[in-house]
């Protein structure tokens, strides 16, 4: 515990330089603006900022990216409260009570609740990031090819299950992502797969251009295809967070923080699920259930705490297993690799101070959102009203140039275009994009782990099911799949009821 505190204090001291603090504030501001503008997501923000920070030292670049990520998740609440449109999918739950409060003339109070909830959520997540990362890192050292194989399958299956409305489509998207990762030279024999003689494909599909396409170009097209809406923003009261709101709902804050962090740890699930789960849990436990959806302070607090707690939570598997907890965390993982940081089971051995550096980055991000939450309200309201026709072409230019900037390959611009169109088409048919991204990230791990595992056991499948961690992961995959088959779900429900009957009687 004390080692962690000392590590955190050292990291804060390491970053306490004016130019670094300026980067943190800049990153938070960019994130806040991107998050507040409907149509621009945190994933796109972090992906675009990755391309803009390539030449910076790794710690400063990652500080900017983490501040952008935290800022974007917080920023989404602004448009949710003021316009009833979630700035990012993570803020969808905040619309329900946030906008209801705004309609009652309490938009300022709602923004204050969002600010306090987001900061507290980030701090709870930070605490568990510092606490769990060394523990999980140690556990991850026990992972071999068998465990990593099931972890990759579990990530894609659970992400497909939870991020959309149709698990089957989520799984298809996830497996397409796994296949995309197989394109190019494979790692064991340098054999070209699915390149069809195209030299540029030998290097594989780079993650950042693909992500910029799916979350950037596709978003530009998605926003522009609909007629623009016009809004009025009502006058609002003070945005200073009230201590009373926090003290009155401290249980909700802690519960939502825990739920958000836990959901963040689950691979590929993300902030929107964290916000909805926290909101649902708060509603179930609330004494004022009838106020939910009609301007409940507790509901808004739960959603905002949950989604922001998810951010540090999503970074925990990035650091310990090199598996992203959410779509923006996938970009963060790619950015870490670009900057020479090797996240994974050995992080606590090779680079133990880095974990506390990340905690310190989250802390600076929370200070950034506190400052902007208090002083930037009017400017943000003005930004929200800027016509999309002015913003979107500039975003597209950044998507094109950003994709090119990573490796100075014109081919990456084409990758961005193809993935943008693919993303638009698949989303129009309700295929979620988070599993696709997670599939691209986890494809290499799955490929190597399965082949290495089979080679080690000489084709014997027993180790895939016989080792404790591998067996637990396999059970989780199986349960997730069975839960989506109506007959199996009914049987499992009846079985559970049968098992619990003696306890109910007692």
């Amino acid at each position, binding site marked *: 515990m004390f080692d962690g505190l000392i590590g955190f204090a050292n990291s804060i001291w390491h970053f306490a330089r004016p130019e670094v603090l300026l980067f943190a504030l800049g990153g938070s501001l960019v994130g806040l603006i991107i998050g507040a503008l409907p149509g621009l997501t945190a994933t796109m923000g972090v992906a675009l900022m990755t391309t803009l920070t390539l*030449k910076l030292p790794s710690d400063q670049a990652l500080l900017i990216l983490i501040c952008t990520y935290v800022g974007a998740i917080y920023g989404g609440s602004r448009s949710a409260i003021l316009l009833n449109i979630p700035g990012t999918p993570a803020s969808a739950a905040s619309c329900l009570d946030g906008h209801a409060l705004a309609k009652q003339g309490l938009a300022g109070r709602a923004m204050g609740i969002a600010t306090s909830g987001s900061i507290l959520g980030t701090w709870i997540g930070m605490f568990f990031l510092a606490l769990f990362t060394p523990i999980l890192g140690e556990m991850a050292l026990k992972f071999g090819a068998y465990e990593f194989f099931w972890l990759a399958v579990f990530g894609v299956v659970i992400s497909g299950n939870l991020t959309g409305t149709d698990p089957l489509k989520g799984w298809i998207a996830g*497996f397409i992502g796994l296949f995309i990762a*197989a394109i190019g030279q494979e790692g064991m*024999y340098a*054999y070209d797969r699915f390149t069809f003689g195209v030299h540029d494909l030998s290097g594989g599909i780079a993650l950042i251009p693909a992500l910029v396409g799916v979350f950037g170009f596709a978003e530009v097209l998605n926003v522009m295809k609909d007629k623009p809406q016009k809004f009025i923003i009502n006058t609002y009261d003070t945005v200073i967070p009230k201590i009373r709101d926090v003290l009155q709902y401290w249980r909700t804050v802690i519960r939502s923080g825990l739920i958000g962090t836990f959901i963040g740890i689950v691979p590929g699930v993300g902030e929107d699920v964290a916000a909805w789960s926290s909101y649902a849990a708060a509603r179930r436990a609330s004494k004022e259930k009838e106020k939910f959806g009609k301007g409940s302070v507790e509901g808004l607090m739960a959603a905002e705490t949950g989604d922001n707690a998810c951010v540090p939570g999503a970074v925990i598997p990035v650091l310990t297993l090199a598996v992203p907890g959410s779509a923006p965390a996938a970009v963060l993982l790619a950015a870490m690799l670009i900057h020479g940081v090797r996240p994974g089971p050995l992080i606590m051995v090779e680079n133990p101070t880095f974990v506390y550096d990340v905690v310190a980055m989250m802390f600076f991000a929370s200070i950034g959102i506190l400052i902007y939450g208090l002083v930037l309200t009017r400017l943000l309201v003005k930004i929200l009203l800027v016509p999309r026709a002015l913003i979107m072409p500039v975003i597209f230019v950044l998507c094109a140039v950003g994709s090119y900037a990573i490796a100075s390959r014109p081919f990456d611009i084409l990758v961005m275009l193809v993935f943008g169109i693919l993303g638009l088409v698949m989303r129009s048919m309700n295929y979620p994009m988070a599993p696709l991204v997670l599939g691209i990230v986890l494809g290499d791990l799955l490929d190597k782990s399965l082949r290495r595992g089979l080679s080690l056991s000489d084709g014997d499948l027993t180790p895939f099911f016989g080792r404790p961690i591998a067996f637990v992961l396999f059970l989780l995959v199986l349960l997730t799949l069975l839960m989506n088959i109506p007959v199996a779900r009914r049987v499992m429900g009846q079985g559970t009821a049968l098992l619990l009957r003696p306890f109910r009687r007692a």
Partner: protein
Amino acid sequence: MDQTEAPPAAAEPAVSPRVDFWSSFVWIALGLAIAAISLGMDRMERFQASIYTAPGLVPGLLGLAIALMGAILLLRAVNAGALRPRRRRPLVLVEHWRLIFSLGLSLVYALVIVASALPFWLVTAVYVTTFVIVFQYAERRASRQVPRGIVVALVHGLLAGLVIQYAFEELFLVRLP
């Protein structure tokens, strides 16, 4: 300005079973094609490599999984009424002009910066200006501000082109295409 009530959640549009029906064929065909290509890949037997490390093993399994899920989607779509006769709604391209124009213009822009020797700032300025003029034209015409709209679009486009070129080339040291 008038206020439009938007749905609170990012609600996903309903997808007709017929769309799922046709998309399932794409997945089945893609999955089977992946499996077939994987089967034909070198198994590295001349290196005395284990068959389990063959490069085609994992993509082959992934292809089969995609085809299987496509088949489940197909059955589900048929059960949901994908084959029931229904009135066909003709596709009116004009209704989708916003998407077609933004997609077309963006593709042309990207291909021009990749394939031509024109200065980046100029191509970007033309792209941004055209985009803004076209998408703001109706609103500007309604408020009788077309010349002002063109000036705003020109300034915006030139600023975007010059600032992005300066930022990438001078600050981020990236040689633009």
